[in-house]
């Protein structure tokens, strides 16, 4: 498995091991394309642990992934996740994190900011719903590839005919209002504040029990702690927090979790502490978990008041959350495998 595939410049960013791990997890080439090109942390990429950032591979076949490529929330260094070498990973991971922490205050910070803002504007434009002119909220994609808020698309279909508002192609199936999870997650990562505001102002609870990924998303959202803006917030602490949160979620047995049950989630976070020990196979997971717990205790005050479930988080956090989900799934499979 060579790292240099011609169609992606980012090919070199993928370590061979990762690719194998990804294959195991059931990803295809396409999903690996979800790499952001212009993260300023490129210097770090030369290291063994490559930075990467990707989103949870959607269970649906959305071509949205390619779109997500373009967005570059300037410094979201992804933590390395090398599931094969789980024993080494924790240390490497921690080392890497330290290095990254050192690096981030460096000069690339300034570049990050200005590039970030520029990118953010373009991203905002890209990710806006053409109907409400806001950031897409629970975006749903038409067969012709255009995305709109689920509500907006539905209203448009009800009132203006079943045509795509942008290209007028027929939307064949009137009730296909599925949320484009990848896009949605991306949006939540990038514009947590807007999303939060939108939710606060009376967004409807989405209660579509659609399976793991959705549940994961919900879970992730429900624990999003920070409200900081993207781009400037890619501190390792946030990352760690997200890691921990994600870890927690990942370990939880997969099930449907409604957003209302934020308190449950919080309780579970605390309970996780006790349960953490049970997952000894996933060594990395354990370590990360511990870190997460520490994080969880820190901002627990902020999380005391009932909902809003998120927004203390930077996009990294969400990215991490997604990552964790993948990792957890992978681990669960492993665990089950071992158990069997």
């Amino acid at each position, binding site marked *: 498995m060579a790292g240099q595939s011609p169609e992606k410049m980012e090919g070199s960013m993928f370590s061979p091991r990762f690719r194998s791990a990804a294959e195991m997890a059931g990803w295809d080439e396409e999903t690996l394309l979800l790499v952001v090109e212009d993260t300023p942390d490129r210097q770090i990429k030369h290291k063994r642990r490559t930075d990467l950032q990707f989103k949870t591979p959607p269970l649906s076949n959305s071509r949205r992934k390619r779109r997500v490529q373009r967005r570059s929330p300037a410094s979201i260094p992804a933590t390395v996740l090398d599931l094969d070498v789980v024993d080494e990973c924790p240390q490497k991971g921690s080392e890497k994190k330290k290095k990254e922490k050192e690096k981030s205050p460096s000069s690339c910070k300034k570049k990050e900011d200005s590039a970030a803002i520029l990118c953010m504007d373009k991203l905002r434009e890209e990710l806006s719903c053409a*109907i409400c002119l806001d950031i897409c909220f629970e975006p749903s994609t038409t067969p012709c590839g255009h995305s709109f808020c689920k509500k907006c698309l539905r209203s448009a279909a009800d009132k203006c005919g079943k045509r795509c*508002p942008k290209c007028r192609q027929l939307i064949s199936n009137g009730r296909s209002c599925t949320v484009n999870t990848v896009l949605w997650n991306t949006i939540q990562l990038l514009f947590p504040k807007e999303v939060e505001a939108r939710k606060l102002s009376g967004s409807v609870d989405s209660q579509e029990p659609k399976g793991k990924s959705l549940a994961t998303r919900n879970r992730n959202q429900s624990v999003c702690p920070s409200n900081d803006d993207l781009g400037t917030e890619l501190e390792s602490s946030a990352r760690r927090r997200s890691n921990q949160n994600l870890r927690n979620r990942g370990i939880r047995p997969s099930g449907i979790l409604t957003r209302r049950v934020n308190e449950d989630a919080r309780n579970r976070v605390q309970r996780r502490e006790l349960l953490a020990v049970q997952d000894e196979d996933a060594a990395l997971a354990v370590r990360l978990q511990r870190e997460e717990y520490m994080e969880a205790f820190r901002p627990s005050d902020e999380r005391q008041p009932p909902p809003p479930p998120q927004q203390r988080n930077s996009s990294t956090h969400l990215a991490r959350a997604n990552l964790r989900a993948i990792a957890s799934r992978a681990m669960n499979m492993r665990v089950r495998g071992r158990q069997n």
Partner: protein
Amino acid sequence: MKSSSTGGVGRSWQSTATVSCSGKRIQKEMRELNLEAPPHSSAGPKGDNLYHWVATLIAPQGTPYQGGIFFLDIAFPVDYPFRPPQVLFKTRIFHCNVDSAGNVALDILKDGWSPALTISKLLLALTSLLSNPDPYKPLVPGIAHLYLEDKAKHNELAAEWTRRFAR
């Protein structure tokens, strides 16, 4: 947006929130217009009412309407952007797609409307309508015929109308 914390996804929310929903969208469009004004045209709300706008089209050079300033009334429906805004010419114009009451025949204002269209695009479409009338779907067939048969005379009349009524 009003929040309805019920399980009814979307339906009750829609009806109570359409006014503010359209209001928000109109406000956003207003801000967008501030930043990226289309050439030759501008629009803004009439006084305090966000749903009633006035637009001005400065006829582009090279068209027989050049030198004319055309005022239009734009009325946004309550369920904008799902219904198109109503556009009315307040200035007389000799155009095959504008009738003697000021109504405009533009496909995007009727069946071709899509919620993804904005005022800015609408203004662009209107400006381009000035430059390129569509005689095959006229609102005033007489003018369309003249346009097709004797374009010079049509342009001359259009210029005369502009000079008399739109300066």
